[in-house]
Each structure stands twice: as structure tokens, then as C-alpha cells.
């Protein structure tokens, strides 16, 4: 076995420094100079600790270099040391805006590996919760999108309406952000008796609010000018980068796992998949706005007749042993496909668990979209792809 000694300083972690140096020595004939500037890790619109190194010419973006790893927590490695049941709560902390969908995804993977049949009640409740979470996630995105475009008011309206769903979750689940509610084999507890009533109240409240969103923001001429034909991602590039979710659909690819490989009770409900035409920021905006309406439709169809049944089909105290083998399961979260790849060795812990998170692939679309646009457009694009940084770094 060959051992090599490496001191950290001698490892060329990135060639960024060299590139910046070479650019700063360079002078064009007009005496203007292109330059690099750090956007993040502390920047108001990188939504967390994402660092983008921008190569600029005046205000025009020539190149975007995302630098990752500022919230890397070693999630996948961690999962190799804790049991299958304990992993679920870690997925809350990936894409914290779709905690329930992440819970569902990993539970689904484990259930698939164990061949567990779930009853109808669990499936319906999971679907309702997931769609509520999708609405909630898009509400927050809408607010933040407004703020990134310079309008602060949508941010607070988004949060105000998000709070209504959060209150439902708080009563049903007992948590506001890190749910850990959907467990392998069912749900942590049964839903409360007034759950359906509360959800109906929320839908009645939110339907007119969606039109108000359009009045305040979507129709606004400044928004139209800022979004139309900005950051165009064509379908081919979108697929080649591996983008999923609303970004891929805005580019004109009707790829939605809820339709293609239905899980839960998605095959029993009627809903449409909004698809964009040009793949610009406006399409991405509209796809998400329409998705909120479609999610409301799904919840409306399910909420009135939640079937009776147990909320948990496995014994909670029992340890989970996944039989030896390789398992993969994926699910459509608010941002795209979240897949879990489990390599099990028959013990209580996975041998290897890989998480295919949507934001990591989605992020890289900016390096194709941003060049040639302004800094303000870069912020718009970054906001329109709706990244959550802990999901990128894991």
C-alpha cells in the first residue's frame, strides 16, 4: 500500500487564485479591466452560505463560478453510523423547506426495501401533507423572489400566508420546520380531528390571496421586464445538467414524477403539470405559481374523504434491518427530484447512503444562464431556480 503525505497547503484546492491574479495583471487597450468579485458566502441574495465568484466586466457577468461546501455537514457519512430510523430526521435538514417530502422520500426508500404495504390512510395523509408543503415552499419562494427583485412587501405577504400552513403543521406535527413526521411504515402520530377543517379553511383563505399575488407582483410591468427573456435555459441544456422540478418543466420538459411514476395517491387525483415554453425566469415564475394552484386542487380532492385506518403499520420500537441489496427510490419535492440510493449490508445501518438532492444539479444551471447578463439578472436567476444551500452541500 502506498502512502503519501500531503500537507493541506500544498494541495491545489482550486485554480481560482491563479485566474484572479492573471486577470488583474491584464490591461485592455481602453484601460478598462475585467475583475472578479465574491458574491457570498455572506450576501443577502445567495440564500445562505453559497459563494459565487463572479467574473465581471463592468456590470456584465462573464462567468459564474459557484464555490460550495460552506454548510457541508457530512450527512451521507453520518447516515452510515446511525440506524435507518434515525436517518429520517437528518433529511429535514437537507432542503428544510420540504422537510416532509424529504421524510417521505427516505421512508419510501426504506419501505420499498422492506416491501411494506401501507394502508390508504397513510398514503392520503402523506400526499396532503406533501402538497401543503409544496404550497408552503412556493409561498416562501415567492416572497423571497420579490425581495430579490427589490420589493420587500411580497416577502412579508409570503411569510404571512406561509404561517397559516405552518400553524396547521404545528398543530398536527408539533414542529414548524424540521418535521420528522413521516416515518418508515407510516406517520409518527395520527392527524388531529380538526385537521381537515383547518386545511379547508386555509384553502378558502389562500385561493383569493393567489390572485392578489398576481395583482401585486406578477402583472407588474417591472416584474415583467425583469423576468421575460432573462436567463433562458433550453430543454436540452436543462436535461444535460440534470435539473429537475420546476426548472426543468419551465424549459418545456413535462417531467414530473407524480405523473410518470406515481407514488402516494397521485394516480388517483386529477391535476395538471404546468410546463413553460421558453425556459426563462418568467416561465419558472409562472410554473411555480401554477403549481400552487394545482396543489390546492390535489388537496381539495383528498381532504374530504381521508380513509380510516392505522397511522403506523410497523412497530415503532423495533429496529429496522434492511436486507442486503441496492435500493433506489426517488420523489418529486418542491425543487425537483430527491433520490435515495441505499446500499444495505443486512445490518441496522446502511453500508452507504447517497442522497441525490435536487438543488445541487439545479444550481449549476446558472453557469449556463448568467453569462452576458447583469448582476441584477444573476440575482433574479438565482432566485428563480430557488436554491436551498444546505441541500446543495449536505
Amino acid at each position, binding site marked *: 500500500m502506498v502512502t503519501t503525505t500531503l500537507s493541506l497547503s500544498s494541495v491545489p484546492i482550486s485554480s481560482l487564485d491563479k485566474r484572479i491574479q492573471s486577470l488583474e495583471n491584464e490591461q485592455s487597450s481602453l484601460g478598462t479591466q475585467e475583475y472578479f468579485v465574491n458574491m457570498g458566502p455572506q*450576501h443577502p441574495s445567495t440564500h445562505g452560505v453559497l459563494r459565487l465568484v463572479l467574473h465581471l466586466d463592468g456590470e456584465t457577468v462573464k462567468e459564474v463560478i459557484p464555490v460550495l461546501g460552506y454548510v457541508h455537514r457530512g450527512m451521507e457519512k453520518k447516515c452510515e453510523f446511525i440506524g435507518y430510523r434515525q436517518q429520517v430526521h437528518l433529511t429535514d435538514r437537507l432542503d428544510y423547506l420540504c422537510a416532509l417530502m424529504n421524510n417521505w422520500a427516505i421512508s419510501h426508500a426504506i419501505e420499498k426495501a422492506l416491501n411494506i404495504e401501507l394502508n390508504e390512510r397513510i398514503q392520503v395523509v402523506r400526499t396532503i401533507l406533501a402538497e401543503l408543503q409544496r404550497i408552503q415552499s412556493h409561498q416562501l419562494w415567492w416572497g423571497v423572489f420579490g425581495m430579490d427583485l427589490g420589493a420587500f*412587501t411580497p416577502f412579508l405577504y409570503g411569510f404571512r400566508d406561509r404561517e397559516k400552513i405552518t400553524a396547521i403543521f404545528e398543530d398536527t406535527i408539533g414542529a414548524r420546520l424540521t418535521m420528522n413526521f413521516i416515518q418508515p411504515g407510516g406517520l409518527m402520530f395520527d392527524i388531529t380531528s380538526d385537521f381537515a377543517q383547518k386545511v379547508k379553511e386555509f384553502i378558502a383563505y389562500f385561493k383569493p390571496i393567489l390572485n392578489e399575488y398576481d395583482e401585486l407582483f406578477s402583472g*407588474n410591468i417591472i416584474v415583467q421586464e425583469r423576468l421575460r427573456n432573462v436567463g433562458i435555459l433550453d430543454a436540452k441544456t436543462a436535461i444535460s445538467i440534470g435539473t429537475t422540478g420546476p426548472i426543468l418543466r419551465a424549459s418545456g420538459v413535462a417531467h414530473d414524477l407524480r405523473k410518470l411514476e406515481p407514488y402516494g395517491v397521485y394516480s388517483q387525483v386529477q391535476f395538471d403539470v404546468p410546463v413553460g415554453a421558453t425556459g426563462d425566469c418568467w416561465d419558472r415564475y409562472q410554473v411555480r405559481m401554477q403549481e400552487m394552484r394545482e396543489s390546492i386542487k390535489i388537496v381539495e380532492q383528498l381532504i374530504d374523504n381521508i380513509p380510516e385506518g392505522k397511522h403506523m403499520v410497523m412497530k415503532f420500537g423495533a429496529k429496522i434491518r434492511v436486507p442486503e441489496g441496492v435500493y433506489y427510490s426517488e420523489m418529486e419535492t418542491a425543487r425537483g427530484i430527491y433520490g435515495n440510493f441505499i446500499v444495505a449490508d443486512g445490518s441496522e445501518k446502511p453500508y452507504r447512503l447517497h442522497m441525490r438532492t435536487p438543488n445541487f444539479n439545479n444550481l449549476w444551471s446558472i453557469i449556463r444562464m448568467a453569462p452576458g447578463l447583469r448582476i441584477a439578472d444573476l440575482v433574479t436567476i438565482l432566485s428563480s431556480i430557488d436554491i436551498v444551500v444546505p441541500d446543495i452541500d449536505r
Partner: protein
Amino acid sequence: MPSVSSTLTMPLMVGTVLGVVGFISVVAMILVYAERKVAAHFQCRLGPMRVGWHGTLQSIADSLKLFLKEDIVPTKADHLLHAFAPVISVMAAILTLIAIPFSSHLVLADVSIGVLYVSAVSGIGVLGILLGGWSSNNKWSLLGAMRAGAQIISYELSVTLSLLVIILFAGSLRLTDIVHSQEAGWWIWRAPGVGLLAFVLFLIASTAEINRTPFDLAEGESELTAGFHTEYSGLRFAFFFLAEYMNLFIVAAMGATLFWGGWMPLHIGGFTAFNQLMDFIPGTVWFFGKVITLIFVIMWFRWTFPRLRVDQLMSLEWKVLMPLGFLNLLVAAFLSLFGWYFFPLVF
């Protein structure tokens, strides 16, 4: 009216300047509080509620905090300019304020070229922003400063074009004369059509000139962190803040003076009883009432609209506002030549 220098003795001048500084500090504090409250209620919030009754003393607490805060200057900044830039912005605001007539008696310097003076001096303010952004030695600051420079110089044209319409009708550059010319009716509706259009242009262009949303590109917090004042803290930041809110006040005051009749009460043609009732309200109240309304409208803009992009900002000015301004001026010239405006014969 006699000129300032001949009537004011040295101590009186110092007193005037101190008075103006005190006035702007108080006005800025009130405006900051008002903005926070107005913003809060636009956003279904309450705003400051803790310091004093409904947070009325919040501004005092905030300014105290800013006074006591450490003044951080980047090591590689141009220290002299970095220190001096906020002062330029505040000075410009103070100098502009001197020429504004608050009522028929309360006018510090009734300059015969008042409109020209105000537009010229308020233009100095951008120098402070430019120097502040440049001297910080920060790329974000520099970008913000450059944006501010381009923006303010461009939009100055539209402001001037809309002011020219009123000057044509009033026939004077003296601000008090312009107010007096509106005794029969405010220019916004007395000059048929053109007055209203000029006012709209003025409102849009001055919102841009004072760097407020939807034209707050110089600050652009979601793009440039804080734009030109990224590297400012403590008292110097407070100076920029002060200048920003003073400029808001000045713009509203200019709008009120030129378009809404300054301290003049609202008069409608031949309704003598109504007009006499309106006369009971003192001129200062009218003036501040109009100013507050205008400030509210500009705040309303800020808490509703998103920001424009830098190239859209330029095309809005050069392709929309300026052609409209010239067209408006042309129409206004014909109208005033033939005396075609409402109530021309009252005085």
C-alpha cells in the same frame, strides 16, 4: 425681497445654519419613524412598538446607537474622502433646504433663481455618493456609486424638463413668485393636461434622483449588499441616511411648491364660501400637509414596487420619460403662449 447676505449678520447666519441643521435632524428622525410605520402597515405589521408610545422614540434610540457605534474604516480606503463624502451629501441637502419657502413669511433665502438653485445644489449630493463609493475601496460600493452617478445625472434631465413647464406658466424662477402665481389654482390642474403630466414625470424622475425604490439601484441591497454605503458604519452612515431622508423631504417640498401651490390653500374657481373656509387653515399647515402627502406617495411606491435593472433604468429615462418631457414642454409652451390655461383671468 432683500438678499440674504445684506440683511443677516454673522451671528444670525450661524444661528440660521444651526437652526437648519436642527430642523433637518428632527425632520429626518420623524421621516425614518414614519417610513418604518408606513412600511409596517403596508406589510401587515406593526413596526416599532417598544421605545415610547407606539415606538415614537425609536428614531432617537436609533440615532443614539449610531452615534455610539464604532466607526469602521477599511484599511485600504481613501481615508480623507471616505470621511468627507457623507458630509458633502448632508451639506447639499442643507443648502437646498435654505431656498424652500415654507410659508409666505417663512423663507430663509428667497433666491431670485430659486428653481435653478435647488436643482443645481441638490445635484452636488451625488458627489458625496460617488466619492463614498469610490473611496471605500470595495467593488460593490464602486458599482453602487457608478450606478448612482449615471442614474442621477440622467434623471436630472427629466426633473428639469418637468420643472420648466411650471416656469413657463409662472414666468419666474423665484419660488415665492411661483407659489403666488398659483393663487387661482395649482399648476397641476391649472395647466390643462401638461401640468398633470409634468407632475407625474417629476414624481417618477425625482424618486429616481433620491435613490428610492423602484430606483434604488445605488443601494440595491439584494444585488450590491448595501451599494455605495456598504463600508460605512456609525455616524458616517447616519449622515448618508440623513441626507437620503432630507432629499426625500426636499423633493416633496419642491413638488408641493411647484405643482400643488406651496403654502396656498385649495381654491376652486368661484366657490367663494369654500375658498374662504380654506383660507382659515394657515399656510404652513397647507405646505406641510402637501409635503406629507407627497412623501407618503413616494413611500407607497417603495413598499409596493420591485427594483428596475440598470439598463431598464436608462431606457426608461432616455426612451420614455425624456421624449415625453420634451413633448410636454412643447405643448406647454404653446399653451402658455396663447394663455390657454384654467382660471387665467382671476388675477
